């Protein structure tokens, strides 16, 4: 019987060790972030764990401020206070990100608020950097807008 590695558990355990990881398809080189068993491009299942560089582009930003379908209740409650690694959640917005390694995802961009959102939106795509976000009892990944390069 084939033995399957537990991808989800390993991904979260890697975050606890300070590593943001993905899997790379050994058949075609496609990177899956976050990890899944089957490659979206070639259907390969031989996956190798890699650490991502963390370099990414912001492709879109939403200025979700109100109750809507766009965000969970817990996120809404969270957005009125609290911090993630010292970054206020009020300074974060839902965003579309593309990793340097290829994958695109709906996630959260930090360092963006209602004051700078529209200005930044007009300059898209912009650079950002992945970082580890501490949640209640587990870690996940967020992306930080660190300003434009000089």
């Amino acid at each position, binding site marked *: 019987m084939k033995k399957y590695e537990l991808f989800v558990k390993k991904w979260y355990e890697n975050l606890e060790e300070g590593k943001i990881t993905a899997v790379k398809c050994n058949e075609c080189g496609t990177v899956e972030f*976050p990890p899944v068993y089957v490659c979206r491009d070639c259907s390969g299942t031989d996956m190798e764990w890699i650490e991502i560089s963390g370099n990414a582009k912001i492709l879109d930003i*939403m200025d979700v401020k109100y109750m809507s*379908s766009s965000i969970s209740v817990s996120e809404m409650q969270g957005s009125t206070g609290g911090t993630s690694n010292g970054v206020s959640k009020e300074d974060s917005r839902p965003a579309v990100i593309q990793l340097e390694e290829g994958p695109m995802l709906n996630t959260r961009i930090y360092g963006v608020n209602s004051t700078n959102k529209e200005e930044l939106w007009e300059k898209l795509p912009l650079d950002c950097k992945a970082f580890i976000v501490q949640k209640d009892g587990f870690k996940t990944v967020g992306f930080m807008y660190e300003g434009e390069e000089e």
Partner: protein
Amino acid sequence: MYSKVGNYQRKVYIAGVGCTRFCDILDTPGVTGVTEGELFAQAAIDAMEDAGIKAKDINALIHGQLWSAIESDYLTCGAQMNKWVGMNGKPSMHHDEGCATGYVSVELAAQMVASGKYDIVLAGGVECANSHPIEGKPAHMRRPMGADAMAMGPMLDENVYTRHFGGRMGMDAFPSQYRLRNGLSIEEMDDTLNAIQIAARRNSAGNPRAYFQEDLETFAKKLGMSDMNKFMKSVFNPKVSEYIRKFGMELRTEGAAAAIVCSEEVAKSLKKMPIEILACTGATAEMGTPNVEEITTKEAIEELYAITGLCGDDIDLLMTNDFRIPSQLLTAEIAGYYPEGEGWKCFLNGDSAYDGRKPININGGRCAFGHAYAASGLADVFETVKQMRGESEGHQLPVPPKTVLVRGFGGGQNATAMILKA
């Protein structure tokens, strides 16, 4: 392309349709106390009578409902419907594809008939989405849905990675992308979405099954406002997200709808004008996928046009699941019903209303007709069939449409498309 291009193994028709009013059970006299089985049966019996058949003539039942455990306090819900429609002991299946469920019901029934396995299938959906059962009490006793309803929203996101990123973009994703691509200002996008809302409410006005039966102009006048531009941006219609205002959000309601799907031989033996299901397609992606609605809708409609050989110019009426109002713009352009990049101007021109150049969602859609999740797709099919036969109550198009594209979308992930032909 995922389907084999070509026609069904044999032709498939809709012979009858039924639909209840979409309303609040707890707030509507004469409806308060209704149960899921009764609602489902009301729509199903209407559909049978419309087709001129009886339950004994039907071979199998397809049943759709979301969240049956939470909102109805039961599991294996398809089986519970059999006896309410006189089909106890017959094959039945339950399925749930979020708000796309009702559209998928029609496709499943069509496949069952097309394969030759069954001659007549009943496809129905029911949803009691605006109230809750009371634990330990029978089904006619319900309580208002409170904050616990909001807790269900996040359950649409997968609980592995995406939900915890906190990055769901909801229905703001498309207006934002549309602005990026076409250079609209925030105000132009706002005006466009407001124009869609006004037309949607004009379309539901006078529809006896709709939740809102008066147009927004009338509503505004009652509040002492006659300038619609001001009214649409007033405290009565606040923004609930970056782009979407209150009237551009789904109205969560309760209701049921059903259709009788049958073979050509059966359809031609019945009294009513048979409506052919030319083809059904679908595409699905996980909700955390960026631009999921555009990606899946494109896939579904491209495949639909490849199978049928049709294009946007051939479509007389577009129906699309718009639980957030920008979906009308998204679908109209992808379907080639409105010109790409210029669709927003068509809405500003009033084209989407029943008396416009190219109507959309003639029943009012999810923001005006209402959204009873699993029943909504079948309610759109109900409206389409009635319009095609020239039988629509209160808001019949002067020229009955002959070729209609019905697009479903739900749960953030499933897009479907079908062509109905008179």
